């Protein structure tokens, strides 16, 4: 099992595309079993025994698992009993636990991934390429996946594994190749390497950890949310905004037992489902409250309600003592709510506009972007230059379009923009998603800095290390409810993960350490940290 690691944009995906025949190399050769080959399409690669499991699954939702597997390779074993026998055989051999007659839309993420793997094996792959397979899984599911992979390995297959979660790579890989800026910068043997060394190899420099040094939590409440409830389909989105409808199907499939899972809530017909159910919390000045949860459990709705793009059906939001429940987004932003959106391309940027116009976005009524009714273009441009400088946005100038920057630099621009208006409350949704390690550290630093000056932050992230490292308080959201709270000083990602699947609730205690006895979670916790 070979792992390929590198920062975003280092060239991992390009390399994999070449291996899978989706792209042709300009120079160089590929050899399989010592024999030199060249692929002009994925079909060639499949014929040579290379299979790929994409990060975004390529499955037809309304077909069964069997149909999905035979789709496109009907000639191999037909589409009937033969194919079914073959699927059962592969499934048993590698412990995949596939049920061929279930509709794919009824499967959780982890099960879909197994279907993808089976699809590849069905086509006779001897080498599997997995592109960031763990990005969508909770820790328990990751363990199950790794068990499957080990199974494959013991049967003599090779696995190429792309990831930037270094801990996982070290635990599962036999051999690691690190690439940076398109070239191989090193190889490592997992047993002799720490995640830190690996990360430094990846970035080419020392890197920091997301650990908040000392608590800066005060007792001044900034945001108080009371009994916020949102019904599915409520707050009618008439102007074409279709909120990314999430995978509610992951619910319940904790990965270990693929036979006994999936989907009870999501398909319940009749009464409107509460996508956000009676959520209450308080965030104080200087406090970072982290929300952990599998995507699609109400995070998007919570953010929408807080920033005001879709109002909640009931409940109240108080900001610095004022009731802002009915306020428009613009008024909220003007009064000091900063927003780092979860999808920067859809919500954070005008991709085809120059950087300085993107700097105006969201703050068009505020200085230095406007003077009264008029735009202050000079002011905005000057301030964009400052942001580019201070936040280390790598760009040749402020007139280039936002689309021409890399993801990390786009994100730095957004963080710079939001921080430039001295927010009192920051909604940070996946602030470092798809951002390379170097930029990640800078963004963490900025958030920590602002927190020291009294900023209240709501941090929503899929990166559990980030959540644990940055938060003062941790809450777990599951099926629209805040079901658990935890102390980030003691909790481990695994414990958090089990709460995220709904397996645990209430106050989470780390089992090995002495309980600290926090009960009501909303309060400012552990001053001493």
């Amino acid at each position: 099992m070979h792992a390929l690691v590198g920062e975003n944009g280092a060239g991992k995906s390009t390399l994999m595309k070449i291996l899978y025949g989706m792209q042709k190399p300009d120079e160089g050769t590929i050899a399989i079993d010592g024999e030199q080959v060249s692929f002009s399409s994925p079909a060639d690669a499949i014929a040579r025994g290379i299979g790929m499991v994409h990060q975004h699954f390529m499955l037809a939702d309304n077909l069964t698992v069997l149909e999905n597997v035979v789709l496109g390779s009907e000639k191999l074993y037909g589409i009937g009993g033969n194919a079914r026998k073959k699927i059962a055989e592969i499934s048993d051999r590698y412990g995949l636990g596939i049920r061929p007659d279930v509709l794919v839309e009824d499967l959780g993420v982890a099960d879909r991934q197994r279907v993808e793997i089976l699809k590849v094996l069905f086509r006779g792959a001897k080498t599997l390429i997995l592109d960031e397979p763990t990005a969508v899984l909770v820790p328990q599911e990751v363990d199950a996946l790794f068990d499957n992979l080990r199974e494959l390995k013991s049967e003599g297959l090779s696995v190429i594994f792309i990831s930037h979660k270094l801990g996982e790579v070290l635990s599962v890989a036999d051999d690691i190749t690190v690439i940076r800026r398109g070239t191989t910068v090193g190889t490592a043997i997992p047993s002799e390497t720490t995640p830190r060394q690996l990360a430094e190899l990846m970035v080419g420099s020392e890197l920091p950890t997301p650990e908040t040094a000392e608590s800066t939590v005060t007792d001044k409440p900034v945001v108080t949310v009371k009994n916020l409830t949102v019904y599915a389909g409520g707050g009618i989105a008439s102007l074409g905004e279709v909120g990314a409808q999430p995978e509610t199907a992951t619910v319940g499939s904790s990965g270990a037992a693929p036979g006994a899972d999936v989907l009870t809530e999501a398909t319940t017909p009749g009464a409107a489902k509460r996508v956000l159910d009676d959520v209450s919390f308080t965030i104080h000045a200087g406090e970072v409250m982290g929300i952990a949860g599998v995507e699609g459990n109400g995070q998007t709705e919570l953010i929408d309600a807080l920033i005001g793009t879709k109002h909640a059906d009931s409940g109240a939001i108080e900001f610095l003592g004022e009731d802002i429940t009915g306020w428009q987004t613009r008024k909220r932003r003007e009064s000091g709510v900063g927003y780092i959106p979860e999808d920067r391309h859809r919500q954070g940027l005008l991709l085809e506009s120059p950087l300085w116009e993107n700097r105006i976005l969201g703050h068009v009524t505020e200085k230095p972007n406007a003077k009264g009714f008029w735009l202050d273009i000079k002011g905005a441009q000057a301030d964009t230059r400052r942001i580019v400088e201070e936040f280390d946005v790598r760009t040749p100038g402020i007139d280039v379009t936002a689309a021409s920057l890399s993801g990390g630099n786009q994100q730095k621009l957004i963080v710079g923009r939001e921080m430039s208006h001295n927010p009192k409350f920051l909604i940070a949704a996946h602030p470092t998603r798809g951002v390379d390690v170097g930029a990640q550290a800078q963004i963490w630093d900025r958030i920590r800095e602002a927190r020291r000056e009294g900023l209240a932050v709501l941090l929503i992230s899929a990166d559990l290390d980030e959540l644990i490292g940055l938060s003062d308080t941790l809450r777990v959201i599951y099926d629209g409810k805040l079901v658990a709270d935890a102390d980030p000083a003691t909790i481990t990602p695994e414990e958090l993960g089990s709460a995220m699947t709904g397996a645990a609730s209430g106050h989470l205690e780390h089992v090995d350490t002495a309980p600290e006895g926090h009960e009501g979670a909303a309060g400012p916790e552990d001053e001493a940290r």
Partner: protein
Amino acid sequence: MKKFDKERVLLAVAGPVIALVLAIALTSIVLLASNRNPFEPYVLMLQQLPYSDIQVLIINQAAMYYIAAIAVALGFRMNLFNIGVDGQYRLAAVMTAVVGANVGLPAFLQIPMLLLVAMLTGAFWAGIAGVLKVTRGVSEVVATIMLNAIATSVIGYITLANVWGVQVGNNMTTGVMKKSGWFPGINLGSDVGEIYGMVFVAIALGIGYWVVLNRTRFGFDLRATGASESAAAASGVDAKRMVLVSMLISGAVSGLAGLPLLLGDSHTYSLDFPAGLGFTAIGIALLGRNNPGGIAFAALLWAFLDKASPALDYATPVAYEKEIATIMQGLIVFSVVISYEAVRQWGLRRQQRQVGAELAAAAAQNTKKEVAA
């Protein structure tokens, strides 16, 4: 970063130029296919250009195209497709003609009042589509197309003899407007003609359009909504309000589109009042890339094709059909759509590459310096 500015100008010009070249080439192919000389019609049309009376006709016609195209462009800038400009300007013209024939104020009041009537009528008619869109989610495309048809019927009713219509020979008119409402123009002599005073209103509108879009908060919100509705919503733009307001403004502007002719020349709304301006304007706005300068150029080109093509019918020794100009206009719209999208994607990719290259170069220089130090 002057270089990227120059790039942008280059990209902006490349689209229309490619479209025009392509359209001319395709027209020549059509001519060849019908066994005609593939180049002579262009020469014949260009020969019309030096005549002053043709120039005046072109400018006057272009002014109407320009106003209507600005109205369309306003919608385009925020992804609203106002196909209803046609109904809006005709209804506005008829209302203005009726008011102008029945109310007589001094000129300094009469003309602004007539402009206001036209704008309010246009805004009202477009506003119906706007309200339907924000309250019921009705596509503005469908609503405005239907409103065009309704406008035709309403105009038919208004011009009935027992409503406001006045029969003049075989023609139904709305009666001659009071003299104080005639917009003064620049008279260049009886054999040349008169440039409508509304031409300057059109120019002012173009400038106003640019200033509002590029220099005001409102314009920024409007453009942001057009560029990315989701990003605009997250940034605090009230999308519904924005849709309604831009529909109203677009309608108000289109209300003015018929006035150069009405106030400058015909002084009455009759059955032969030009129709279809609103549809032509869509092509002009496209060709002009929703940019006030580009639209001016496109409007002039369109007016030139309109006014120079009749000469083809009388050409000696060989006459051509003047419909060649219509074919060309159609082909221009067709090639505009293709070439703009191609240029846009090419430009985006090119800039991404350039930025990448510059950053790589900068990084390489830095490491060199470090090594040297």
